[in-house]
């Protein structure tokens, strides 16, 4: 029990040695950051990250083979070393949680120690490699020999290891670009958020962009402010042909309703034409039993919008319809001469040649007449490994919920407060 009296560096090592290790490493890291600086660090990309990762795993394996019979292995794969490493990381993360993580130009102690960009500083790099190393030792010790009862432990610890390892090494390889597709044109280039264009190993032709909309809604607005009347109540009603409804104090009847229409003279007619907009003939009965009739339309990019004045204060209008569903029918060409027909939809992406294609947006001003579809193309070759790790951790968490407290009860019961 009398651990505290053990001289430093005498076996078995415990918390003191562990904290000295972790904080010594931080100190070295900060000294290097202060003198050399990490400005020259770029993010590493394929294949350097793969090589580095392989070397790191081999190193862990080698260290394990060399020291597995020695007392130091017990230390490196034990809880004191783990807590030291976690505490070291915590110190950095607390600094990160207090100082704003933004570029600052004036050279002060904060910037030269990298406090304002901790995730790219040398101490952060060091402590992460150290923590991964310790966690690697921990996992390896529980994996050999493999025991069935350790599966929950392996899920959470190995899962965490894989997640941190894959996410860290893979971050340099992530690419996330956008493509503007115009109907009947072939597009093979995509742009990033700074507007730089890249050639892709695939080309997409938009055959048809389809969009379905909800019916527009009836709403009452204040003539002077343009604000919705009594916005705190359910205050918009979707228009249907022959709808009869009560909107606030007014009774409203929809006599005619066209999804696409055009105005001729004093009346709207159902018609199909570029820009044809929804319109409805409505009858509005005021509380004083006056009837007001007229046409309302939400207009479109080339048609005016029309509302019905109720009185000095209020008008009845038709809202711009919201999109229900939009999708792009595309042909995707790959360099091997293949052509695939696909439909891209929100939340229904398609993967080709390692690129994931998402339906993102369209020309919103044109609404249903949009002939442009905006898609996002994402390449993240390491994502699958991160997801494997994350799902292992999730299983580990569910196990933890189910299994509950693992601390040895007898020892707790016997324990004396000290």
């Amino acid at each position, binding site marked *: 029990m009398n651990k505290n009296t053990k001289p430093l560096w005498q076996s078995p090592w415990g918390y003191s040695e562990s904290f000295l290790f972790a904080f010594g490493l931080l100190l070295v890291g900060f000294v290097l950051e202060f003198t050399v600086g990490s400005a020259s660090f770029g993010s590493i990309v394929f294949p350097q990250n793969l090589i580095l990762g392989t070397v790191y795993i081999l190193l862990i394996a080698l260290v394990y083979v060399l020291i597995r019979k020695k007392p130091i292995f017990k230390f490196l794969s034990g809880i004191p070393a783990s807590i030291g490493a976690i505490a070291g990381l915590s110190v950095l993360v607390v600094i*990160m949680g207090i100082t*704003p993580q933004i570029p600052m130009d004036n050279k002060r102690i904060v910037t030269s120690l990298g406090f304002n960009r901790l995730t790219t500083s040398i101490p952060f790099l060091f402590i992460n490699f150290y923590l991964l190393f310790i966690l690697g030792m921990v996992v390896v010790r529980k994996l050999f020999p493999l025991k069935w009862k350790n599966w929950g432990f392996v899920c959470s610890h190995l899962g965490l290891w894989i997640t941190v390892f894959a996410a860290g090494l893979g971050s340099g390889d992530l690419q996330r670009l956008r493509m503007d597709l115009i109907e009947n044109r072939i597009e093979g280039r995509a742009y990033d958020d700074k507007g730089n264009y890249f050639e892709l190993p695939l080309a997409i032709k938009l055959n048809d962009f389809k969009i379905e909309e909800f019916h527009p809604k009836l709403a009452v607005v204040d003539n002077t402010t343009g604000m919705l009347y009594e916005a705190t109540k359910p205050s918009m009603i979707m228009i249907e042909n022959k709808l009869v409804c009560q909107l606030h104090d007014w009774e409203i009847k929809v006599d005619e309703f066209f999804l696409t229409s055009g105005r001729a003279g004093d009346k709207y007619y159902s018609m199909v034409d570029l820009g044809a907009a929804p319109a409805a003939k409505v009858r509005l009965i005021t509380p004083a039993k006056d009837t007001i009739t007229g046409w309302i339309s939400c207009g479109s990019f080339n048609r005016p919008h029309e509302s019905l004045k109720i009185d000095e204060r209020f008008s009845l209008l038709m809202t711009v319809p919201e999109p229900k569903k939009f999708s792009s029918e595309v042909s995707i060409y790959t360099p091997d001469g293949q052509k695939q027909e696909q439909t891209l939809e929100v939340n229904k992406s398609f993967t080709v040649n390692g690129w994931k294609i998402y339906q993102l947006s369209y020309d919103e001003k044109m609404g249903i007449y949009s002939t442009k579809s905006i898609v996002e193309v994402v390449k993240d070759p390491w994502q699958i490994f991160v997801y494997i790790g*994350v799902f292992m951790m999730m299983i580990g968490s569910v196990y933890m919920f189910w299994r509950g407290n693992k601390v040895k009860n007898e*020892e707790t*019961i*016997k324990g004396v407060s000290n």
Partner: protein
Amino acid sequence: MIWNHFLLAAGISTSTWLLAAFIPKRELIRNILVLAGIAGIAIFIGFLWINLERPPLRTLGETRLWYAFFLPIIGFLTYWRWRYNWMLYYSLALSMLFLFINYLHPENFSKTLMPALQSPWFVPHVVVYICAYAFLAASSLVAIRGLYQEYKTELQPKIMLMADNLVYLGFAFLTLGLLFGALWAKEAWGHYWTWDPKETWAFITWLGYLVYIHRRFQMPSKFKSSLWILALAFVILLICWFGVNYLPSAQFSVHTYSQQP
């Protein structure tokens, strides 16, 4: 019409749950009542889904419905596995609170959420965090009690076992919350983790409880240091929940929406 169905569903759930709270002794009947209330919300969500022809996840009101649905499920599972009655009643009370907020603010059903929040990950992320905080807060109350007993030198080991189990359950939910958040961020922004101040403090909280768990596992017979770690971890958790906005780093947070759910 949807509104009337909502009133019906909320009324059924509220009344079954209130009834359930009054007969805690008749366990079978109580459980059936709790489940009936959950089913009421489930049927309404299904009805809404068919009626809107889309998953009802777009508006603040709709997401609250999902909270009101998932919270009692987790509360019930916890009760079923661990016999924590308080967690069951806590989750039922919160669920009723969410229904009540929807009742007071019908406009929440037409207010659409900002696009980034319209994600299937949003609801599980928030729900598991609510559960995590409940367990961890409970464990801290136990820790304070333990520290008091320790001060009076009459600490009972049973206290530690109780704190341990609460931390394990809370930590499981906290981990799930972080992971759901990371997956969601990946889908929405393309990055798992951006070290936003709120995320950073959530991570520090996680580390705090991680230390507690491992310390306890290694030194089951030493209580005092563990109790202090637990108390400290809760202070961090409070910083994460309330304090982040006052820190110098917070001006750049994406998590400070004006309308926190």
